[in-house]
C-alpha cells in the first residue's frame, strides 16, 4: 500500500525515509513475530507501538491490554478481563512476552530497575524490582533501552531484578522457562546467541556504526564479523506506524533522529 492511498494526500510524510524511532518500533515489533496467542507486555512507548504493529501485521493473534484490567483489540474493543491477579497467573502460566525497561543491563542480561548504588542505602531509589524476578523466570522477557549509554549497559548491575543467563545457568531446573529473546536500543538490536550466552550485537539500525555501539557500551560486547542492519520497514508498515498507530508522532519524543 502506498501513500497515495491517504485521503489527506500526505505523500511527503509517508514516503520520507524511516526515522531512527521507526526502526526501533519495527525492531520491537519483531520481538513478537511468531508469538501466537500470547500476551504482549510492552512497557514504554516504543515497545507499545511495536506490539501494535506486530498485531496489525505478522502476529494478529497477540493479546494486548488497555494498560489497566482489560484485554482489548486494536480498536480498543474489550475482549477479555485481566486484572492484576489474573495477570500474575498468566505470567506464571508462561503465555506472555514482556518488553521491560532497564535502568541497568549487563552482558548476561541481568536487569536492574530497583535502585542505583548500594541497595542498603541507594544513591538513587528507582521503581523497585516490580515483577522482573517472576517475569524473567517464567516467560520470554526482552528489554527496551531508549538511550543506549554506558550508564545503562554496565559491567555489573547494582541490583539484579530480571535474571540474566549466567544466573539462570546456576538454577537449571527453576530457570527452565528463562528466555531473553532480545534487547532493543536506539542504536541496534542485541541477543544472547553466543556460546556463553553473553550479549551480542545482532543488528545495527541504519546510520549507526559498530564503533558508536562499542563506545556507548560499558562491557565487552560480542560483535560478529558481519553485522546486518535492522531490516527496512515495508511501505505498508511505515504507513501503519505513521497514519494509524502513532499519527501524533509521539515516537520521535522517545527517540530522535
Amino acid at each position, binding site marked *: 500500500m502506498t501513500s497515495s492511498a491517504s485521503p489527506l494526500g500526505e505523500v511527503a510524510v509517508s514516503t520520507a525515509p524511516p526515522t531512527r524511532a521507526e526502526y526501533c518500533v519495527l525492531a520491537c515489533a519483531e520481538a513478537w513475530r511468531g508469538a501466537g496467542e500470547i500476551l504482549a507486555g510492552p512497557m514504554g512507548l516504543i515497545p507499545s507501538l511495536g506490539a501494535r504493529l506486530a498485531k496489525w501485521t505478522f502476529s494478529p493473534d497477540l493479546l494486548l491490554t488497555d494498560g489497566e484490567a482489560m484485554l482489548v483489540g486494536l480498536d480498543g474493543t474489550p475482549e477479555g478481563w485481566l486484572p492484576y491477579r489474573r495477570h500474575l497467573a498468566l505470567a506464571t502460566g508462561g503465555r506472555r512476552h514482556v518488553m521491560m525497561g532497564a535502568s541497568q543491563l549487563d552482558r548476561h542480561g541481568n536487569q536492574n530497575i530497583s535502585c542505583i548504588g548500594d541497595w542498603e542505602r541507594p544513591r538513587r531509589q528507582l521503581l523497585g524490582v516490580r*515483577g522482573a524476578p517472576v517475569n524473567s523466570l517464567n516467560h520470554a522477557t526482552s528489554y527496551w533501552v531508549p538511550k543506549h549509554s554506558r550508564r545503562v549497559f554496565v559491567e555489573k548491575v547494582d541490583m539484579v531484578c530480571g535474571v540474566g543467563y549466567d544466573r539462570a545457568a546456576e538454577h537449571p531446573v527453576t530457570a527452565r522457562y528463562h528466555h531473553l529473546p532480545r534487547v532493543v536500543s536506539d542504536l541496534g538490536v542485541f541477543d544472547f546467541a553466543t556460546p556463553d550466552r553473553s550479549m551480542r550485537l545482532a543488528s545495527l539500525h541504519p546510520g549507526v556504526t559498530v564503533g558508536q555501539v562499542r563506545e556507548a557500551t560499558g562491557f565487552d560486547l560480542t560483535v560478529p564479523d558481519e553485522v546486518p542492519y535492522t531490516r527496512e520497514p515495508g511501505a505498508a508498515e511505515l504507513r501503519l506506524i505513521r497514519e494509524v498507530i502513532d499519527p501524533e508522532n509521539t515516537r520521535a519524543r522517545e527517540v530522535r533522529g
Partner: protein
Amino acid sequence: MTAEEAVSRLASGMTLGIGGWGSRRKPMALVRALLRSEITDLTVVSYGGPDVGMLAAAGRVRKLVAAFATLDSIPLEPHFRAARERGAFELMEIDEAMFMWGLRAAANRLPFLPVRAGIGSDVMRVNPGLRTVTSPYDDGETFVAMPALHLDAAFVHVNRADRQGNGQYLGPDPYFDDLFCEAAGTAYVSCERLVDTAELTKDAPPQTLLINRHVVTGVVEAPNGAHFTSCAPDHGRDEAFQRHYATTPWGEFAERFLAGDEHAYQSAVQAWHKERS
C-alpha cells in the same frame, strides 16, 4: 465507624496492609486519619503508591514490604524515594508475585507457598531470611518458600459497602483488596457510599461483592476517600493535585492539606483547585 475510630484500634509497631495498587483505589482517607494520629513504627505491606510515600515522609514506617512504589502517571514516588535515600526505613523488597503468594499464604493459614520467582535475582541477596523448598515430586524444582505476610490490620477502599462490612468494587480491577482483608487480623473498609444491603446487587452483578463481612472489622463512609488516587467509576485520579503532591516539599504539603480533619482536607483541595482555575 469513623476513620478516627478505625485508627484508634491500631497501635504503634503493628503490621498494616494497605489495599489498592500504585495510585489506584488507595484508602487515602484512612491513611490521612492515620497521619493525624500518633501511631508510628509501622510495618507497611503495600503495592505501594502515595500511601507509602506519605507514611514514609511522615516518619511512620519502620519497615516496608513492597515490590515497588509508584504514582503510575508519575513513575517514581518522590517521597518514598527521598525517605529510602536517607535510610528512613527497613525494606523487604520482593517481587509482585511473591507478594501476592505471601498474602495468599496468610489468608490460607499456611506458613508459606512455593513460587517460581526470586531465585537467581538479588531479591535473595537482600532478603537473607528467605528460604527455598524443593518439589517432593519427580520434577525436583526448587522454589522460593514465600513466607505468609500476616497483617495485624488492613485498610482498603471500595466503591460501596453496607453497614455489616460487605464491600463492593465497581471498577475494572479488584486489585488484592479481598486478600488483604483475609490476611489480616482486623480489616477496615472505607467506601465512597454506604448503602443498604439490598442496594448492592440492585444494579450490579454478584461478583462485584469483593469483600465479605466475616473478614471485616469496621466500615467507614468516606466519599472521595481514595483522593487523589483513582476510584473508577466514582472518580478518576486527580492528576493535577497528584503533580502538586509530587512536586511540593512534604512539610509544606502536610501543613496546607493534612493539618485538619478529612473535611478540612477535602475543602483545602477544592480551594487549591479554585485558586488555579
